[in-house]
């Protein structure tokens, strides 16, 4: 099963993922339509934590606590793509899902998909239509720094385990692109300066 992997060290907090997600899920499919629209739905959020940044969205857990907690039949799993999907027509915004989600990946508001004039839960749908047509999620496509990767779970996990072991045994670090390394260094310093100064 394919998943979206986050390599937070490569995240430059440019928010291209947020923008692409907003456009992808907006009925106009257009940045100018999505801008300034209170119903615009953004399923990924770049969280700044000190000098680090983390593109946060649904992890499509298996088993998924939200799916087991939803009492209205609104959350289901696409057995082909593995995506945990939320049907806003059935959602009652009761927050049972949000109450158990470890990643704070479910939010509430009146989106364009809300049918009854009230808020609904919304979350990442893994761009299910795109991936089932052979494409990538919009956020991954928009990410130019390599922080978001869409790939086979087992293969990527194996690769990371190997590089982690190399790092541990041989002290070989994964080479970070020099510009990303420079950017991280600057951000770390800026963060320190703000902490100390302001």
């Amino acid at each position, binding site marked *: 099963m394919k998943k979206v992997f986050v390599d937070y060290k490569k995240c430059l907090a440019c928010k291209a993922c947020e923008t692409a997600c907003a456009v992808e899920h907006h009925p106009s499919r257009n940045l100018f339509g999505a801008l300034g629209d209170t119903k615009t739905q953004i399923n990924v959020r770049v969280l700044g934590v*000190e000098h680090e940044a983390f593109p946060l969205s649904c992890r499509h857990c298996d088993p998924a606590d939200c799916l087991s907690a939803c009492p*209205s*039949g609104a959350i289901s799993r696409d057995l082909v793509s593995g995506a945990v999907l939320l049907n806003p*027509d*059935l959602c009652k915004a009761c*927050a*049972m899902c*949000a*109450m158990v989600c470890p990643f704070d990946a479910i939010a*509430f508001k009146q989106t364009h998909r809300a049918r009854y004039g009230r808020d609904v839960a919304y979350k990442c749908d893994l761009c299910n239509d795109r991936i089932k047509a052979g494409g990538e999620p919009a956020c991954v496509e928009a990410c130019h720094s390599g922080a978001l990767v869409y790939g086979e779970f087992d293969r990527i996990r194996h690769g990371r385990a190997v590089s982690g072991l190399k790092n541990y045994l041989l002290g070989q670090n994964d080479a970070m692109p020099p510009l990303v390394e420079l950017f991280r260094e600057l951000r770390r310093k800026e963060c320190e300066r703000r902490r100390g100064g302001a």
Partner: protein
Amino acid sequence: MKVVTVGTGMASAEFVQRLRLEGFDGPITMVGDEDFPPYSPCVIPFYLAGEPLETVYWKGSDFYSRYGVSARLGDPVAEVDNERRQVITAGGRRESYDRLFYATGARSWYANPEWLETRGVFGFKTLTDMVAIDRYITENKVTRAVIFGGGFIGVDAALALWHRGLEITVVHRNTRLLSQMTDEDGGRFATEKLKEKTGIGIRLKTTVAGIISHHGQLTGVQFSDASSMETELLIVSVGVSPNSEPITGQDKGVAVSAQMLADPSIYCAGDVAITPHAVSGNDGIYATYPNAMLQARTAARHLLHGDGSYPGSINTNVLKKHIDFPIVSAGSFSGEAITWQQGDIWRRVYLKEGRINGYLIIGDTRMSGYVYQLYRSQKQVDKSIKAILSSPRHDSYYREMLGVGAA
């Protein structure tokens, strides 16, 4: 092997669906007292608030045909004869079984059941109740309602009818609404905020002492403080009791094993089953949807594969209906209290030996999932919990994971 479920509620529907999805092809009969496909009790108040009836059928209105179920509806089971392996309905019908799944849930409890004979007095538990209330409000152009009982169901009823545009008064004998799922301070905070945000009338430390009627039609209610109020609609939601009489002879619930067995051929689950708490170990009826699901899945797995056991229940609950003001609670409210409040948000965690014993998160849900996981896993949090509760950006989980320490 013939499987019979007593009850057509959420646990029974999940159980049957699991059996079928895993390839069980024997006959299945579902026996229930109401005449509907399986519906979600959590969703039915939204029907009263004006949303389509179709959405209450959380597994589809074609459930019985889709899963090849013989449905025997509109006739409650009165007795389970476990020696002859038969269930006997109130109407005298018999249904034999090889394996029984007993999940009859709970019903409204009434101190004055005779009140219900008056037109305009209703319980608030079943889809039958909702349909009757909906018809009554429409036919009589009801504009005002009194809700007697301000627990979860009472507040749920109040918010649904408030959303529909009725003028609501909630009468509750305790010092705060939701007195079971909150502590004193949290409950008072939630009560004030609910009042402020909705304009619902709330009368605390008061009960409905009597009803006033004219030719069998409700015209008003008399309160315990001797005052009265005109109303054509009274909803009584002062308590529930489990439907365990057909199996135990009493309404105290049904004790079950870790395999959800009440007897070698009877599984029991849902709001009628007595289970241990996953954290505290205390036996009780933990009547929430996620517990019922896990119980039904445990039973289905045991029936099909002969293995698995129930890990215990968690008493987490959340009330967030019609307004964006969630009230989340879990565990028990004893131990060292750590509280944080700002504006509409109020959070408190009770610690015991440095671990979360219970918590209340009122006003937003943003960190409730993380706190829930810390509670379930019984992690040592005495050093970090203050920062977690007060973190302005709700990023404690990510801070922990990235190893950047508390804010």
